[in-house]
């Protein structure tokens, strides 16, 4: 009996369970992330001659997909790689079921996914790559990694994505792996709430000036920002694009309160008011992926909570249930890419924590419990969420994988706020020009 206990304890203490952010029970609902170790396939990126930076980037992207148990091999075992056929047996003994082989091709790289169990090449593709100094180089390597993730798991990765966030009052852009940090708004102007257009070519944000502010739409390629149509006085905050990329929703604050408007930013017209707050606040709109509904924050019942309405402003109702007088303020909703959930933050003991509400069942689930965790934003794969946390001291972008509970930091030089995760960026994505 005693003999059995020791390995059992070790099993519980070690492994991915320790990466879980929370395992609390609350209000009879199991919160946090349940993860059964060992269900992810082991994957090895084969060593080989040349392509060191491509191999390092692909390995990290596959790791960050959180879909594989990454198996590290620093040097090729005898007969393991290099020229000639891959020695499947050696990597199988290391626990790998999949192997990624990267070899130099005429003007780029050939990627092969080996199925070690079936002893065959499952997928293969040759892609052209620009030189390592070309600004499009990293994006194309990330796209290749996302494609390999799709071969291996059925769903593409999210490496070829970027973040917008605010630091020191400026909007910055950064790659999903922390590279290519670039300011997008000028120094000395307070910018807030950046958000991507669906095509990744533009972003919207609030420019705060003298206590007033406009919702602006700016092309990443440059040029003058466009002011969103609508009330010119007061403060236009929390802009968000509809999935059609033509409609912008935002909240307008003036002395009668804060209300949600939509406007057509393609034809620069047709501002329409969706809520009538009468000294209450309605803000932070977020569209369902089909564009038919908008979740938002409202103070109509007192403290801010999460509501939902049709995109024309009708059928307004509570989305995330709360106990009046007990539940903390809830803010910053963002609708998931699959439409099933809305993530938001809710104060618990005056500290914001991430929560999910499922749209069909209206059940609320708490995701985090330690420190401040706020302003969540979905990855396009619908399983990763980026948010701002102070768990490392100052506020930084962190990324949680909902399936495994694994959390990683995306380091930025200054304190970060208000992140927005792009959709997968295509080959036409505007490349930062440092």
């Amino acid at each position, binding site marked *: 009996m005693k003999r059995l206990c020791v390995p059992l304890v070790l099993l519980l203490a070690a492994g991915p369970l320790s990466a879980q952010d929370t395992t609390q029970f609350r209000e009879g609902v199991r919160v946090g992330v349940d993860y059964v170790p060992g269900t992810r396939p082991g994957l090895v990126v084969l060593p080989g001659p040349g392509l060191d930076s491509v191999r390092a980037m692909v390995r990290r992207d596959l790791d960050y997909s959180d879909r594989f148990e990454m198996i590290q091999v620093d040097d090729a075992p005898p007969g393991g790689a290099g020229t000639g056929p891959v020695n499947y047996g050696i990597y199988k003994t290391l626990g790998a079921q999949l192997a990624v082989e990267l070899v130099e091709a005429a003007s780029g790289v050939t990627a092969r996914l080996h199925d070690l169990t079936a002893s065959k090449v499952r997928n293969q593709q040759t892609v052209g790559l620009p030189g390592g100094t070309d600004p499009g180089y990293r994006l194309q390597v990330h796209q290749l990694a996302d494609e390999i993730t799709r071969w291996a798991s059925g769903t593409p990765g999210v490496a070829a994505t970027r973040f917008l966030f605010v630091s020191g009052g400026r909007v910055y852009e950064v790659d999903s792996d922390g590279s290519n940090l670039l300011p997008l708004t000028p120094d000395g102007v307070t910018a807030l709430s950046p958000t991507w257009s669906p095509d990744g070519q533009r972003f919207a944000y609030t420019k705060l000036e003298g206590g007033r502010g406009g919702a602006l739409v700016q092309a990443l390629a440059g040029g003058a920002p466009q002011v969103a149509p609508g009330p010119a006085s007061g403060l236009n*905050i929390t802009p968000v694009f509809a999935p059609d990329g033509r409609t912008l929703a935002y909240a307008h604050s003036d002395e009668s309160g804060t209300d949600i408007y939509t406007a057509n930013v393609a034809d620069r017209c047709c501002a329409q008011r969706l809520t009538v707050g009468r*000294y209450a*606040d309605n803000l932070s709109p977020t569209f369902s992926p089909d564009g038919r509904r908008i979740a938002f924050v409202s103070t109509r019942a007192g403290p801010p909570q999460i509501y939902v309405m049709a995109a024309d402003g009708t059928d307004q109702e509570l989305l995330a249930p709360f106990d009046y007088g007990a539940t903390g*303020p809830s803010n*910053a909703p963002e609708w998931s890419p699959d439409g099933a959930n809305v993530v938001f933050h809710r104060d618990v003991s005056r500290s914001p924590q991430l929560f999910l509400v499922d749209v069909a069942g209206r059940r609320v689930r708490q995701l985090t419990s330690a420190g401040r965790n706020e302003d969540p934003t979905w990855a396009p794969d619908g399983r990763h969420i980026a948010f701002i946390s102070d768990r490392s001291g100052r506020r930084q972008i962190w990324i949680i994988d909902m399936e495994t509970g694994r959390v990683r930091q995306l380091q930025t030089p200054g304190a970060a*706020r208000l992140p927005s995760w792009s959709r997968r960026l295509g080959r036409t994505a505007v490349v930062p020009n440092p």
Partner: protein
Amino acid sequence: MRASSLMLLTSAVLIAACGGKAPPEEPAPEPTPAPAPAPAPAPVDDSAERERLERERMAREAAERAKALTAEMATMINFEFDKADIRQNDQGTLDRKAAILVANPNVKLRISGHADERGSDEYNLALANRRAAAAKRYLESKGVDGGRMEVVSYGEERPLNPGSDEDAYAQNRRDEFEVTAGGDNLVAPQ
């Protein structure tokens, strides 16, 4: 130097008490005006010089009163966490502002709302906007024309106290009041 200044002050007070010129409309303000750095020797019986000093004294007192009124206009009010209600002990502050605004119809006011750093960054813009609007509505209820007041919000972007403790938060949850026009030579309310 000190003796001459005192004499100067004494003679000025005597002149005022004798009622040679139009007396000030209300009692002098509590703080005694600082002695003017007058390098002149003690005045002899010279009416032109006395008039000059009298004008200086009245101007000084008027400036003091205006300064006090300006300070009253700039007095901030504070709020409870996540609240935009005017607190009872801030009503007096707003009542005094309203009286000054009524007595000085050319004065325009910008009210800016602020929040502490704890709430959501974006919600704090709306909350601070509501705080500024609440002060404006209160002043309107006391007879100040709404067209003279503008409402702006800085959310949590401009903390008064950069700290992250309850004291700092309490200071940062506030409305600031800035006179944007007609602020020179404020007249005291009757």
